[in-house]
């Protein structure tokens, strides 16, 4: 047991479970997956510790932990890229729906695919700033989180989303009711 091991163990005891929760929040993954990522980050940190000559160990760990997260995101992207893709015009696009009690008939599936195509085109037509806010909002990010991610003010987020929703309602007509539109 050396000084490095002692320093490492102290950090591990203090931060392990907080890191697990951080990864759960970031990846919306299971605790088991988050523990795997946390252990990976600490393992890399341990291996790099003897090369580190500074007093900001936790900042050094943060760099490693962010790289672990980044590599995971990149590998997830590679898996997604290699996955079978479904065209927006394909009626199978509706296959993303949760399993229904009864199989929708062909006309319903066609109708659903058409609806989604209209929504897709409408969002894609939004100006870049509004489109980015809308995609994050639809992914359940809060206004303050969108503001922080895009480095803009909360007022700017509200204004962009208001304009985007107005455009989408006009474009989609009566169908254009947005989820939790009252917010």
């Amino acid at each position, binding site marked *: 047991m050396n000084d490095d091991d002692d320093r490492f*163990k102290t*950090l*591990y*005891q*203090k*931060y*392990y*479970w*907080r*890191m697990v*929760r*951080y990864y759960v929040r*970031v*990846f*919306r993954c299971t605790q088991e997956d988050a523990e795997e990522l946390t*252990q990976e980050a*600490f*393992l890399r940190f*341990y291996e790099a510790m003897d*090369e580190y000559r500074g007093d900001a160990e*936790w900042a050094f760990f943060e*760099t*490693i*932990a*962010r*790289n672990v*997260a*980044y590599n*995971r*995101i990149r590998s*997830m*992207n590679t898996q*997604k*890229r290699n996955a079978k*893709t479904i065209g927006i015009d394909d009626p199978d*696009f509706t296959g*993303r*729906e949760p399993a229904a009690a009864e199989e929708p008939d062909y006309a319903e599936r066609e109708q659903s695919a058409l*609806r*989604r195509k209209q929504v*897709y085109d409408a*969002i*894609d037509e939004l100006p*870049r700033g509004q489109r*980015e806010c*809308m*995609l*994050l909002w*639809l*992914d359940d990010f809060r206004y303050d989180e969108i503001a*922080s*991610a*895009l*480095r803009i003010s909360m007022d700017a987020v509200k204004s962009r989303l208001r304009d985007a929703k107005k455009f989408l309602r006009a474009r*989609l007509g009566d*169908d*254009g*009711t*947005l*989820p939790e539109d009252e917010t």
Partner: protein
Amino acid sequence: MITKSDWRAVSQHLMASDRRRLGDPPTPEELLAYTRGELSADEEARLQERLVCYPELVRTITEPFPTEGAEPGDPDFMPDEELGKHWASMQSRLRRKPAEGARVVQFWRYSAVAAALIAVVLGAMLWVVTSRAPEPRLVWEEQVLMPDGRRGPESQPQTLTAQGESIVLIAPLIGAQKFDHYRLEITNQATARVIWSTTGVQPHEENNSFLIIVPRRFFRPGTYEIVVYGVSGDREERVTTYSLLVPRSNR
């Protein structure tokens, strides 16, 4: 009637389509520069476009990174007994790696640093020689690196294509502010480790570029980042980066 699942499915489809179009997510270094406000307006806009299609990456910004550790008595504090089990498991994972791994890596790192230092000197000499007598040479091959953010819509790292035992990497400083001198680093992105660095250097006067000769075996397959820092007095600024992908077959 458009349902909530329609909206979600469409937004996920748009993000997936953006990911295919825009490529890999921003690197941790790019994100750091972004969150510190160090990017130009154009670079920031391009980064945001790539960022938004990776919600997990967005959450690394919006979710606070734990900065306060748990103290004894806190439910988050890992008891000694549990730590002992984790420690044993970690040691066994470390043992599964090659026994001499760390020392081998150290040896190669120091060899590579020495080789690269010699290579920089040789590179400068080579530049002088080739500029005076531009006859064909087969031993060295050059590759001009484009700074990150200046490769158009293609945001993926530049692939190392130069062949040969050693290569000359030409890293131009495009439109960068002048500094008293510069510091260069090469980082392995997979491990976030700086594998080579040098200080107190100046770009070549004629083309405002750094020339780095690197023995081929210095680069294992993977992604690397060459970072140029400008230094004036006590002030040091990250000036530019060049991401470089070394493919498996290109050795």
